[in-house]
């Protein structure tokens, strides 16, 4: 009878505690996302774009991204779209640190070294200057031939006309495609690296069992040094349980 009353009291107590902590948690906007978060970013032209994603590759919609410069000052704060992607104009060059955060406290960071705006321009404009004509097929074939004179002059200096600035040359387009490909590859590598590896799980379990063995060993030594005082541990346990 006494036991059943205590039982009821416990239940009531538990319900109150649950309600209290639900309220607490609601106030704090907390969460229990129990998974890890990753971020990847790359420079494209004068913009930086990237993705915040969970282990396995699905995007973290609505995650916050904070951008810090080399001095540790916060320069930008962004919110990701539904696919976890973000894009911004840094407005500064050099090292930057991107921190992706979910409101539950999961966070991840990525270091990125951006080129200066001039270097980026030069890189993207060189192929344009190298293009000799405004898309003339004969000229194009000449340019691809390394032995031909006009191509050499075109490469050594900006002798060619600048009409091709407005329209990207095939070479520039190819480089652009290649860059897309590299970005996708790097994303893939990051994703596969962050995927849970079953080998790791097995390894971790092995470590835990090993530590358990060590604990057992230490505990056994302690018992031995106490001179087998507790020869019947179940009885001792019962006595302790009853005393409490």
């Amino acid at each position, binding site marked *: 009878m006494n036991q059943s009353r205590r039982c009821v009291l416990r239940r009531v*107590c538990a319900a109150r505690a*649950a309600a209290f902590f*639900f309220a607490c948690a609601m106030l704090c906007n907390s969460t*229990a996302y129990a998974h890890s978060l990753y971020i990847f970013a790359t420079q494209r032209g004068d913009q930086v774009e990237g993705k915040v994603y969970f282990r396995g590759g699905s995007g973290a919609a609505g995650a916050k991204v904070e951008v810090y410069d080399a001095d540790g000052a916060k320069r930008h704060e962004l919110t990701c779209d539904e696919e976890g992607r973000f894009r911004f104009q840094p407005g500064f060059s050099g090292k930057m640190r991107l921190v992706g955060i979910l409101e*539950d406290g999961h966070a991840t960071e990525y270091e990125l070294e951006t080129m200066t705006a001039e270097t980026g321009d030069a890189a993207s404009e060189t192929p344009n200057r190298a293009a000799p004509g405004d898309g003339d097929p004969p000229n194009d074939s000449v340019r691809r031939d390394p032995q031909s004179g006009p191509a050499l002059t075109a490469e050594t200096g900006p002798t060619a006309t600048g009409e091709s600035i407005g329209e990207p040359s095939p070479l520039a387009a190819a480089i652009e495609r290649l860059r897309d490909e590299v970005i996708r590859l790097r994303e893939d590598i990051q994703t596969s690296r962050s995927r849970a590896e079953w080998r790791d799980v097995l390894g971790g*379990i092995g470590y835990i069992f090993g530590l*358990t063995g060590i604990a057992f060993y230490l505990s056994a030594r302690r018992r031995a040094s106490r001179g087998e005082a507790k020869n019947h541990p179940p009885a*001792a346990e019962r006595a*302790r349980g009853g005393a409490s």
Partner: protein
Amino acid sequence: MHLNDVVLSVSPTGLGIMAAGWLGAAAGVGWSLRRLDYERIPLVGVMSAVFFAVSAVQIPLGPVAVHLVLNGLMGLLLGAAAFPAIMIALLLQWLFFGEGGITTLGINTVNMALPAVVVYRLFGGVRSARPAAVWWSGFGAGFVSIVLSAALTGLCIFAVGRNLQGLSVLVWITDGGLAFGEGLVTAAAVAFLHQVRPEALRPAAAS
């Protein structure tokens, strides 16, 4: 619920929470190891391994994926010994999966192990033999432990003053879903254990 290094390392309050977490974790681990019974060591190891391994099983829940935490079950089975079990599993989760962080290991341990101990005080040592009562105490343990852990984690984030409110509704749906799922799994595990090995549900270490 795994606080990352970068979340707390930005402010003095965060560093204070970190230090407090380490103190709390050290106290919990030290106290429980001192009282740990010889023949319960294997169970602590097994539960630590379960806690570690279950985090690799991602369960899609709407737009995000969650994994079970099972700290409620650990509390019921281990009592205060949940502290060392959870700390070791968290350390390995950081090493292998990059979840959580090394500076935040202390506070993360407290955030998950303290609810386990509280749950043990509330629901532990299942005394009623009625199957329904056993089931509900398991459910309560799983549910309350998750809500408590989430609340503690939320308090930490709130204390460092990070303004992260983009996801609230989503967060509440997944949070509640996870707590409910944990309740069901813990209830099933406890009901099963109560039938086949009732003495496992009376950890002397936390009494």
